């Protein structure tokens, strides 16, 4: 039962999701510095410009921009890519996300795939080098500008992510402590907090995040049992990579996710399983984007077979 009108309109709903991201983004800024802010700014400008241009081409009212969905896609993509990636990466990715991920399908509500993840997958496949160079140190205002806008050698700055480190360590048979509180764990906790906020504000339902996290736990625990050489365990997976960002902000994109209560459970759970498989055996460090896109394709099927029981039938 819903009391009154908790959410006034779609643009407000999108805005709430952006509010939910604030803590995680603040933590990213705290650890990685100004690069984060530049990426978000670039993405916002590109995303909104691309949306306006395509709305004009499609002869639609540009009032649609007020629904904040382009802004949300831009921010989600910007915080998913490395903060030291060159400027054209985020510009290309955001334009691709908005144009090919959304506008060409008919705009908000008609896109079968998660636009931000489509943009991310496009970038990762096309520019694997730029997309896998992360930093673990704070970049000052000037350093950030330098790194993103001039082609200086950034090898000195970049480092592997914890996911890659773990994978490498396990491959080499080194000792790897999965329960170590580092930057990624804090950022994941930040997004978890934002997710709880979204739940409290009734922007998202519990089905997708919980089933996704359950999928992650079940699959990683299972791999621990059968293939302990490659497995990193549930605790590690829950707080590394894009787990929490994915659980509460990416999988929950209502347009491209399953729309029935039972379907959402299936959708989240299967993504969780796929993410662990890709992380463990795939050649990319994280698998949220690919897993989400794969299940986006399966949504019509899931929805069809998960129709709720109608009263009186």
């Amino acid at each position: 039962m819903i009391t009154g009108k908790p959410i006034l309109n779609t643009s407000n709903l999108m805005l709430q999701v952006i509010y939910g991201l604030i803590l995680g983004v603040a933590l990213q800024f705290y650890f990685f510095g100004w690069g984060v802010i530049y990426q978000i700014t670039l993405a916002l400008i590109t995303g909104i410009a691309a949306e306006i241009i395509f709305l004009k081409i499609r002869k639609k009212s540009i009032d649609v921009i007020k629904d904040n969905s382009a802004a949300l896609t831009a921010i989600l993509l910007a915080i998913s890519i490395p903060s030291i990636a060159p400027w054209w990466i985020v510009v290309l990715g955001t334009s691709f996300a908005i144009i090919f991920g959304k506008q060409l399908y008919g705009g908000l509500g008609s896109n079968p795939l998660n636009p931000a993840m489509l943009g991310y997958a496009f970038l990762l496949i096309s520019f694997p080098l730029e997309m896998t160079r992360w930093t673990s140190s704070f970049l000052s205002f000037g350093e950030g500008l330098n790194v993103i806008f001039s082609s200086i050698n950034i090898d000195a700055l970049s480092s592997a992510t914890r996911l890659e480190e773990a994978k490498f360590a396990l491959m080499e048979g080194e000792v790897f402590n999965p329960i170590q509180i580092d930057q990624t764990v804090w950022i994941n906790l930040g997004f978890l907090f934002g997710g709880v906020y979204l739940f409290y504000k009734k922007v998202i339902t519990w089905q997708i995040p919980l089933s996704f996290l359950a999928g992650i736990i079940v699959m990683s625990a299972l791999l621990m049992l059968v293939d302990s050489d490659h497995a990193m365990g549930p605790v590690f997976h829950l707080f590394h990579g894009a787990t929490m960002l994915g659980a509460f902000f990416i999988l929950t994109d209502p347009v491209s996710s399953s729309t029935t209560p039972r379907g959402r459970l299936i959708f989240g759970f299967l993504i969780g399983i796929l993410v662990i498989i890709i992380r463990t055996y795939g050649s990319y460090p994280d698998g949220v984007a690919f897993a989400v896109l794969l299940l986006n394709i399966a949504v019509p099927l899931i929805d069809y077979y998960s129709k709720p029981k109608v009263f009186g039938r």
Partner: protein
Amino acid sequence: MSKHDFRGGVLIENPYPLNQLSVVEVPPPKKAIYLLKQREGASAKPKVKVGQKVKVGQVIAVSNNDYCVPMHSSISGVVSAIDDQPIAHSSGLKVPSISIESDGKDDWISLKGCGEEVDKCTPDEIIEKIRNAGIVGMGGAGFPAHVKIKGAQGAKTIIINATECDPATLCDDALMRKYPEEIIKGIEVLMYACQSQKAIIAVEEDKVDAIIKLNQTIKNKNICVEAVPIKYSTGAEKLLIKLLLDKVIPTGSFASSSGVLCQNIATVKAIYDAVVIGKPLVSRIVTVNGSALKNPSNYEVRIGSSFSDIVKKSKPSANPHEIRVGGMMMGVDVPDKNYSICKITSSIIVDEIKIKQKESACIRCSKCNEVCPINLLPQQLFWFCKSDNTKKASSYDLQDCIECGCCSYVCPSHIPLVEYFQYGKALVKKELREQELAAKSRERYEFKEFRLDRIKQERDKMMAEKKAALKAKMAKEKDNKAKIAEALKRVNDKKK
């Protein structure tokens, strides 16, 4: 308080609380217009002529159709016109009507009821009395009360629906506070007519005065008042039954098949009037409410009175208004106030003109499914209805939609979902009708083919027979000729 519940629903506060709770009695109007088609189906035929004098309570239109109850004059005066008038619906559809000009006397026909001792009449006589009094479901559906009662003979439980349901409508509340004795007596009449053992009056829990008044009046231990949550769409019959009795009435069957009769509380009061006093249904309580009114109130008015006369009493502002009939949730918008009160007019909402929220794209957030009491997927139905995909819409149980409007209410994209569903349903109906027509014409065509074929066969057969007969005849003639020739030859031979 009920232990059970149904899924979904929304909690909506009344946006326009009334500042005066008593019922204002409105004197008979100078002119009344009676619409003879009260619901889908047949319309009653006028029994009076223009210029004829009528009294209050006199039958002015009847029908042979059992689903169409008679109409009575609610004022005394002269029939001034019999013509078509618009019904209170955005379609502007016109239906046959009778207009009567008052003589200012309020002269009634002589009333003859059963009196307080109802058991002197048989249940059948009571049902006949209910039919003759022109009583229909006064909650909004307008289904003939006697048909429902006849179908629910032996129903174990009678549910009296006083949940109002619509947040801005308070006519049931007013009725319960004004006529508790009549209501309880009416329920006893109904229980007697159906031979039921139990009656539950479902009242929203915030109608405290009404609950107290009813409880003080009830002497019969088989009648009880049940406070139900103030959740919107509780007033829908099948949901109310689920809430009170935890019974699910399957799609396509009626409550009566599960031994339950559900009647609106205003209908029960009308039944009391009809059976005990012998008074036909000529008046009802209407809530007049809305942001444009200085003095929103409940009015007891004669059927056929005009909207504008009653709205005037609530002191509307001078600005242009938005008018809605039948509740803020399930009602319909009408262009102006030039309509007359029907038996089913529960409320008139008069609002200042609001800026309509623009419809934006559906983002499949499924808030609509969360609140749908029927557990449909409005977000999916919306696509199917929008693209005229009736087959798909039907497979997602479009027909089960009760049009309560919870989905439209919570939609963050302000999509008027129910309007899409009404459109979809109409489309399904049209297709069914076309299919029926096509089937019928195919049948006709096939029969014609069959008939032509049969005629041809018969003709062929006849021709063949004729031919055969002719042939036989010719053969016979030939035979005869041969015989004659032979005989002649024989004669000639003998001659030689």
